[in-house]
């Protein structure tokens, strides 16, 4: 009998150690739903937070700003809807010390507003209005300590501003003298869904922005003071959709020219020339939905650099194409999605060398919802 009791105790104690050892999966696929069918979300951008989770920026169909925090496993943690005094948020998220920031506009006069998100306190606060700079279109890093803001002034058109680390404006440059630019931009947006963006390369020596200018939707190069040095003008109503630059002065472009979607994985950037997008010599992307975002992301897999091109396909899926950054050759293709249509919104590398894809999905035929999907590094490597 003693032997029998000892046996039971040994079995119980040895097995109980493992009950908490079930590991969570790195991969996740989360659709954030609202029981109210009348609410629709339009996801815009995401950023990975210090705790490994994700902040998602979205706008609702009532034009309200919606921020959602998901855990590193894609679980819902918290969400906030901002006061209706602020509307139309724009990507990108930026991080400054412990907090996260994005730009929106006031509903009263469309003044650009910097919004601070405190992840720990779960708060959204408008902390600075850039008076006189209206209708923000794009916001992103110039370098790790300063930022670029693109706005659309109703009387002169595009304005590029450099924002310092403390969020004061250092300089602002206008490029054209067009009147009634808001109306012209609104007219353009009726039949086009272009991507506005700003950025920099060469350690901040070359800046670029993408917006509507007198000759059409134009990609513009400037020096580090915002003086225009070159441009890529549209070919037959086309536009540049996205760009990823490398340290050796090369870039990968998604663009539309002559009514066709194209991708150029490896191109020497001519920041002092003025060319047309038809000169970029890209390869056709016949399955791309040209009025939806196409994004490029430089990643590294097994110490080899790759360029990941992602876009929404005509059948409502997201297509990922991996190109070797050294040779420019296509290495792998992966499709995401099935019955519920997906629209790509953002794609980012994660700290553990995976990727997260933010998209809008329509579930049950009517509900426009935020979809956040993570692909771990191992799965990306297996694609090759």
């Amino acid at each position, binding site marked *: 009998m003693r032997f029998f009791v000892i046996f039971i105790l040994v*079995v119980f104690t040895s*097995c109980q150690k*493992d009950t908490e050892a079930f590991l969570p999966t790195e991969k996740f696929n989360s659709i954030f739903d*609202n029981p109210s069918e009348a609410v629709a979300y339009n996801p815009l951008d995401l950023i990975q937070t210090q705790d490994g989770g994700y902040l998602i920026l979205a706008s609702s169909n009532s034009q309200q700003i919606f921020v*959602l925090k998901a855990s590193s496993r894609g679980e819902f943690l918290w969400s906030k809807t901002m006061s209706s005094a602020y509307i139309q948020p724009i990507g990108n998220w930026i991080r400054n010390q412990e907090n996260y920031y994005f730009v929106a506009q006031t509903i009263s006069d469309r003044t650009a507003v910097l919004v601070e998100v405190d992840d720990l306190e779960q708060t959204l606060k408008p902390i600075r209005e850039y008076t006189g700079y209206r209708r923000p279109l794009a916001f992103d890093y110039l370098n790790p300590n300063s930022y670029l803001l693109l706005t659309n002034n109703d009387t002169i058109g595009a304005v590029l501003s450099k924002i310092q680390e403390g969020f004061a404006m250092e300089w602002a440059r206008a490029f054209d003298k067009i009147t009634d630019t808001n109306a012209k931009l609104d007219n353009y947006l009726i039949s086009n869904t272009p991507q506005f963006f700003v950025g920099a390369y060469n350690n901040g020596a070359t800046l670029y922005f993408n917006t509507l200018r007198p000759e059409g939707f134009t990609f513009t190069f400037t020096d580090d003071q915002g003086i225009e040095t070159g441009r890529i003008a549209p070919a037959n109503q086309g536009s540049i959709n996205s760009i990823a630059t490398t340290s050796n002065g090369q870039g990968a472009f998604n663009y539309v020219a002559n009514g066709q979607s194209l991708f150029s994985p490896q191109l020497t950037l001519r920041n002092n020339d003025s060319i047309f997008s038809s000169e970029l010599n890209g390869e056709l992307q016949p399955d791309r939905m040209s009025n939806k975002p196409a994004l490029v992301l430089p990643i590294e897999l097994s110490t080899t650099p790759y360029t990941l091109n992602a876009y929404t396909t005509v059948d409502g899926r997201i297509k990922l194409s991996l190109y070797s950054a050294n040779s420019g050759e296509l290495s792998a293709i992966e499709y995401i999605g099935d019955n519920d249509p997906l629209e790509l919104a953002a794609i980012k590398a994660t700290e553990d060398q995976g990727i997260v894809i933010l998209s809008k999905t329509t*579930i*049950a035929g009517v509900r426009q919802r935020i979809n956040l999907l993570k692909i771990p590094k191992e799965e990306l490597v297996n694609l090759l």
Partner: protein
Amino acid sequence: MFRLIVCLFLLNFSVGVKAQSTFDKLNKNPFKQTQWYVGLRGGANYTIVTPINRFGIIKPTDNADQELYEKKYQTVENIGAIYGLTAMFQFEQKFVVGTNFSVGQIRFSYDQELPGEANSITFSHQQNFQYLDVPIFFRYMIRPTINRFWNRSSRKPEVPGIIPFVQAGINFSVLLDAEKTVTQSIRQGEIEAEGFSFTENVNELLNPVTAGIFVGGGFRFRLGNVYLTTEANFRQGFSNVTDTDRRFANKNLVNNAYDVFDDKSFQTFEFVVGILVPIKYLSRREFIPVEI
């Protein structure tokens, strides 16, 4: 006189030697001090699922709605069948060590809702897994210890006809087959309609081998030369049933039913009846088994 005494002494000695030799042969024969049994067993089980980490596709956008989107594990329709072979070795009057080769059916279901003000969609998930259960267990027979030595009248020691027992063991389960059926239903106000339904093999989403322990008890009844056993056991799984690396591998379930498995273990109550046949006999001609 002396001769008579010597003769009586020798006669007595020879009778004594003859009697001791017969009993000692039986009592000291190691063959009759242990017994092997083989048998058949069958019964039913009832499974309770314990989610360890919850996973899903559909999540809320507000804390107040968290519970609406959680899987709701059902407590009905969780009854499965269990059947197979058993083998045991009784090495002492009170102790038996044994193993089974049983096919155990694990059935459980859960519902997940996509709640809506106008339309609510419910996905019902019915799982049917089959495992080959291979436990190693010790059984303690609750019975008095009896003197194994036969007396000179050659009467066999009396073993109780009904013996209660308790048992405990380690269980290893090898996945044989796993299927799940998803049924969609749509509710609009008072009207409810059936949507799609499909069945998927989900072997690839599960760990091929899981482990656990079990404890239980029952009774052994002597029926002639064989034994009938009834037992009730409680099994506690200690392994994750779900393969964490393959959780999202079934695209049909992910994309059409918004479903991935939770990390989970099973608790199972099982009720089994078995027939045990001893395989060591004192007399094969008369089928008299060794009984200890």
